Structure formats: structure tokens, C-alpha cells
């Protein structure tokens, strides 16, 4: 069980690190001491990540909510609350456990083997409600009521509490921007002190900020009891050993309250349970599908929905194969006619786009012709499934190779100070046909498998 838990925690740390990179992907900001001002900043990110952070690619939902409330911008409030609500109803505090950048900081600090670890402090029972008080007073009321000389409210939580703004916004900007360094005053010292207290607290205590302070966690926690992603406990399997309660960083009695408002869905309880008594709604869904599939018997029905769907899949892959080949021929022709900037660029196009594109495009094409030659509907329907899966894998490989091939272009554009978000957007547009085929193909194969299972 310990190995399973360790593997799970490694996976979670990787997910958190990737999310941190996603939230703070504006690399130019880190190096030049400025922040992104692209249109992407109008869109909220799911985790608590200060929009004044030099790497921030999106807007912090709590900062945005205060911005809407202090300017009495009704539509901004609707937009931000709608965003938080949709995420909350779909996955609850899963964001806190797997996505939030400041959650990663706290988790990493808690791993430092210095102090004797504690899961909660005295008065936890009452202190856990402090985050709701902070939400109501500092995020909602004060920004609306207390107006400055210009008649506009201020973001009180960001100004006086948020440690993320100090850690990921204030410190990097002050280090890299000389003009900001001269403007440091009492507020910065106060916020630095608060940050140090929270960071030191995180070494001793699991997630103190999430437990007692975070207003975003408070909003998501309101959705936890009704969210789509939830935990279930099988009382027949549970032996009441208490392992889940001992491992829970939020100090929850998991067996009695698996969907507590405090639960950050880290999944430690599920992985420490030796009897697999705790499961997530996602796992339950997969298990149900597998159970149905294992009971199914195979029969060939040439007129059935299964074959109709697989015909569509076959045609999509046939068209995709042709499309991939043509796209790569066009890339090569474009390079030849336009004149490559240098020999390295020519080789890159030739190897990564043309050769891999042709291989990935031709293989499914040959398979498709083989199926046509041996009868469009093979006797064993598994052929359709295998064909689709192989084609999907090849297309995914092609997509990965495309991105690898474009890494050099990203580097060149980054050197020219082009916004990373714009680069990624261009990459997405270039690779959109492949992505679309993979998504549609995956959906159809899944649909077909489910149909097969139900039968």
C-alpha cells in the first residue's frame, strides 16, 4: 500500500508541477520583470495565482471577483462566479489538491523533514470557518463598501492577505525590476512577514493556508457536497482501521464524511486503504464499464450501429491519413519554394514534418486499403477496433512529433519576445486537424466500446 501511495503522490506532484507551469507560462515576464498584457489575461484560471505574477497567463478568480465587486461591474461578477461555480460543481476542491500553484508550494514545504508534523492546530474545529469569514469580509464586503478617493473600492484580500501575490508576484518583480525596488514600503514588509509565517507554518502543518485562509478554497468547498467528482465509501469492505483518517492532510473523518467541505480530493485515503473501500466517482464509472464489457459476447451484425459507427471511424481515418500526407507535402513545398532560412530548418522540416508525416499518414492508409481489399466489413469486428486504436496511436505520435519539431520555433519566437500564449495558440491552430481527428476518433472508439459492452 505504501508503494501505491508513493506512486500516487508522485503522480499528483507531477500534475501540480504541470499546472504550475501552465498557470505561470509567460516566461518572458520572469526574465524581464514585467507581466503579460495579452488578451489571455481577461480569462480566469482555476487555481489561486496572482495576475500580477510575472509568469501569469491568466487572471486569478479571487482577484477578478474583487475587481468586479469594487467597480460594481455586474457582468464581471457574473462571469467570475459562473466560472468558479462551473469548476466547483464539476470537480469541487479537486482544484485545491491537484491544480492550485500555491497548494504545490505548501505540499512541497510539508515534505521537508524538519519539524514534527501536525495535521491541524488547537481550535481547528472553529478555525476552519475563518476562510469563510475572510471570503465574506475581505473579498466581498470591504471591496464593495470601503471606497477610495476616486470612488472605487480596493482588492482588500489581495492587498493585505494573499501570500501568493507576495511570493509569485511581489518577490520576483522586486528582484527583477529596479524601479519597483525603490517603492518598497511598510505594506511589503507586512505581507512578507505574513508570507513567512504561512510558509513556515506549511513546513509544520499540512496546508494551513487552504485550511484556514483561502477564500477560493472556501468557494469551491461550498460545491464539494454536490460536485460531480466525489468519493464513495463501501461500508461492506471497510474494516475501520483508521488508515484513511491518519493519512488525510485535511484531518477529515473520511469514512463518515467522504465528501466533506474540507476535502481537497488529494486521493491519499483511496490509495492507503488496503481493502479498496474508498473510490472516486470516476473510478466507479470506469469499473461499471469494465464489468459490462467483461460480460459481453461478440456477434457480427453488419447492419448494426456498431458497424455503422466503425464505418464512420474508418472513413475519418482514411480522410485524416490523406490530409496528414497532403499537409506535410505542402509544408515541404512551402519550404522549398519560399527558401529555407538555413540548412537546420530544412532538415527539421524534412525529418520531423515530412518523413514522420508521411509515415504516420501512409500506415493507416495501407491498413484501410487492406480492409477494403479483404472485404469492407471483416468477419471479426475486433479488426475495426484494432484498426482504429492503431490509427489513433499513430496520430497521437504524429502530434507529439509535431510539437517536438516546433520546439525550436518556440525557442526562436521566445527569443524575439513573442508572447508564449500566442505561440502556443499558433501551434494549436497548426495542429488542430490532428487534434480534432484524435478527439473525434477517441470519442467514436469509446462510444463503440460502450455499445459493445452494453450489448
Amino acid at each position, binding site marked *: 500500500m505504501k508503494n501505491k501511495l508513493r506512486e500516487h503522490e508522485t503522480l499528483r506532484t507531477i500534475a501540480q508541477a504541470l499546472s504550475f507551469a501552465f498557470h505561470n507560462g509567460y516566461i518572458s515576464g520572469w526574465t524581464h520583470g514585467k507581466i503579460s498584457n*495579452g488578451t489571455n*489575461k481577461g480569462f480566469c484560471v482555476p487555481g489561486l495565482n496572482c495576475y500580477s505574477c510575472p509568469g501569469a497567463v491568466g487572471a486569478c478568480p479571487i*482577484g477578478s471577483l474583487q475587481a468586479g465587486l469594487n467597480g460594481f461591474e455586474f457582468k*464581471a461578477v457574473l462571469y467570475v462566479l*459562473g466560472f468558479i461555480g462551473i469548476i466547483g460543481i464539476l470537480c469541487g476542491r479537486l482544484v485545491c489538491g491537484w491544480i492550485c500553484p500555491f497548494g504545490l508550494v505548501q505540499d512541497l514545504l510539508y515534505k521537508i523533514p524538519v519539524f514534527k508534523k501536525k495535521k491541524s492546530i488547537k481550535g481547528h474545529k472553529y478555525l476552519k470557518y475563518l476562510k469563510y469569514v475572510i471570503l465574506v469580509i475581505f473579498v466581498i464586503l470591504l471591496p464593495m463598501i470601503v471606497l477610495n478617493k476616486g470612488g472605487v473600492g480596493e482588492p482588500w484580500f*489581495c492587498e493585505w492577505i494573499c501570500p501568493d501575490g507576495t511570493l509569485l*508576484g*511581489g518577490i520576483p518583480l522586486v528582484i527583477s525590476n529596479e524601479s519597483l525596488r525603490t517603492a518598497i514600503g511598510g505594506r511589503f514588509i507586512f505581507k512578507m512577514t505574513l508570507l513567512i509565517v504561512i510558509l513556515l507554518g506549511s513546513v509544520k502543518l499540512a496546508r494551513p493556508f487552504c485550511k484556514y485562509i483561502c477564500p477560493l478554497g472556501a468557494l469551491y468547498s461550498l460545491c464539494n*457536497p454536490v460536485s460531480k467528482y466525489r468519493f464513495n465509501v463501501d461500508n461492506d469492505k471497510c474494516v475501520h482501521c483508521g488508515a484513511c483518517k491518519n493519512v488525510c492532510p485535511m484531518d477529515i473523518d473520511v469514512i463518515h464524511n467522504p465528501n466533506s467541505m474540507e476535502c481537497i480530493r488529494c486521493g491519499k485515503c483511496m490509495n492507503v486503504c488496503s481493502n479498496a473501500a474508498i473510490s472516486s466517482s470516476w473510478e466507479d464509472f470506469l469499473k461499471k464499464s469494465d464489468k459490462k464489457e467483461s460480460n459481453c459476447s461478440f456477434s457480427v451484425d453488419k447492419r448494426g450501429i456498431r458497424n455503422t459507427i466503425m464505418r464512420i471511424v474508418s472513413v475519418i481515418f482514411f480522410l485524416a491519413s490523406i490530409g496528414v500526407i497532403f499537409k506535410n507535402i505542402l509544408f515541404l513545398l512551402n519550404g522549398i519554394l519560399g527558401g529555407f532560412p538555413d540548412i537546420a530548418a530544412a532538415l527539421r522540416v524534412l525529418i520531423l514534418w515530412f518523413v514522420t508525416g508521411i509515415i504516420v499518414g501512409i500506415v493507416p492508409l495501407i491498413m484501410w486499403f487492406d480492409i477494403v481489399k479483404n472485404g469492407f466489413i471483416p468477419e471479426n469486428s475486433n479488426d475495426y477496433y484494432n484498426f482504429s486504436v492503431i490509427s489513433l496511436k499513430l496520430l497521437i505520435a504524429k502530434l507529439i512529433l509535431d510539437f517536438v519539431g516546433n520546439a525550436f520555433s518556440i525557442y526562436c519566437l521566445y527569443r524575439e519576445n513573442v508572447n508564449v500564449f500566442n505561440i502556443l495558440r499558433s501551434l494549436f491552430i497548426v495542429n488542430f486537424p490532428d487534434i480534432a481527428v484524435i478527439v473525434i476518433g477517441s470519442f467514436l472508439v469509446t462510444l463503440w466500446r460502450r455499445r459493445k459492452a452494453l450489448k
Partner: protein
Amino acid sequence: MNNGKRKVISAILLIIFLAAFGGGIGDGVTTVYEKAAAICMECIGIG
């Protein structure tokens, strides 16, 4: 709360939030952008 009730509440809330998000997205994004595209001095502890 039983599972059926929870599903109904969850679906109703999801519809409400989707409607709020849809209703606010145009001007809301512009407002958020105006705030988020410039450094908030107070937020980083300066000023």
C-alpha cells in the same frame, strides 16, 4: 442528502452557473482584462 436529490441540485446549480458565466463573459472578460493586464502594486505589497 440522498443521491437523487444531490444529482438534481447539482444539475440545477450547473445550469445556473453556466447561465451566469454565459451572461457575463463578454463585458466581464473586458473588465477582468483591464485589471489583470497591469501590475497591481497593492497586490504585490507595494504602494
